[in-house]
């Protein structure tokens, strides 16, 4: 394999792994937080607005980790700096 293929393979495999693994942990975290929030809601329906707001803010915080992984894999696929570098090297020759 020449370096171009190597870069392409590494980018695509890493992009898939990034989103794949990076979505698992936030999914677990979000599931736990929603379950806890539902328990709290069932116990204290009066505090529903506070619980819901805090839940949304917390979910956004947790979800942003998954979003970071997604952004990284999108960069690897569509705007890969290493790929651009390899292309530039290849056209120079």
């Amino acid at each position, binding site marked *: 394999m020449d370096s171009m293929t190597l870069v392409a393979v590494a980018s695509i495999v890493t992009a898939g792994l990034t989103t794949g693994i990076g979505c698992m942990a936030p999914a677990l975290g979000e599931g736990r937080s929603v379950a806890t929030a539902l328990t709290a809601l069932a116990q204290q329906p009066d505090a529903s607005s506070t619980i819901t707001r805090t839940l949304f803010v917390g979910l*956004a915080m947790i979800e942003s980790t998954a*979003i970071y992984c997604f*952004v990284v894999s999108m960069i690897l696929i569509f705007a890969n700096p290493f790929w651009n570098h390899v292309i530039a090297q290849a056209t120079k020759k």
Partner: protein
Amino acid sequence: MRLSPDQWIFWQRGFVKLNATIVFTWGLMLVLAVGSKLVTRKLSMDLQRSRWQSLLEIIVTGIEKQIKDVGLREPRKYLDFLGTLFLFVALASFCNIIPGYEPPTGSLSTTTALALCVFVAVPLFGIREQGLGGYLKSYAEPTLLMLPFNIISELSRTLALAVRLFGNMMSGAMIIAILLTITPFVFPIVMTALGLLTGMVQAYIFSILAAVYIAAATRSGKSKANTKSKTGAAPAPEPKPVTP
């Protein structure tokens, strides 16, 4: 495939580009400014009100209530900034139902600009509320050892605000684009509806997080006994009017 509306260029001369992000942002600004100007042109105080005035009143009082719930006791001071943030992000994702439109918040430059607004506004509000010395002291809040971490958190949450909004908006557009190539008929519509929901949630979260940061900056330096008694006392009187 376009990653962001930045790459969709309408007009270019030299290095001056007019891309879709700028054009749609201007469009949204025009809609927001002209719309609110038209609605507030003839406000009425009596029982006969126009529908648009009722809509605007619902939005403004709703935002005001949310800001108050976060812990800013004088929401009017922050209403213009936070309300504008919310309305812009919400309208940017709501206009997705118009064909040919791409949300300008799907570009990292727009979201970075919005996050930088928050980054600048938080110290400004903090200084206005507790003076320059009081605000700067809040960086060394528990101990002086926390100073670098406070500064890092200031920077990293700005980055997080920008990337979160960008990632959510961009992923919505990307998923629809990918689905269009796989199942062109029904599923993109479902995902667009889901995108409207996430857009609203993101707009809410963006403005709520900005409000939380501003609340932290304006309140942290004030006497701790004061805040402690407030947190202890504030939830207690609220249920009282409900029980009798």
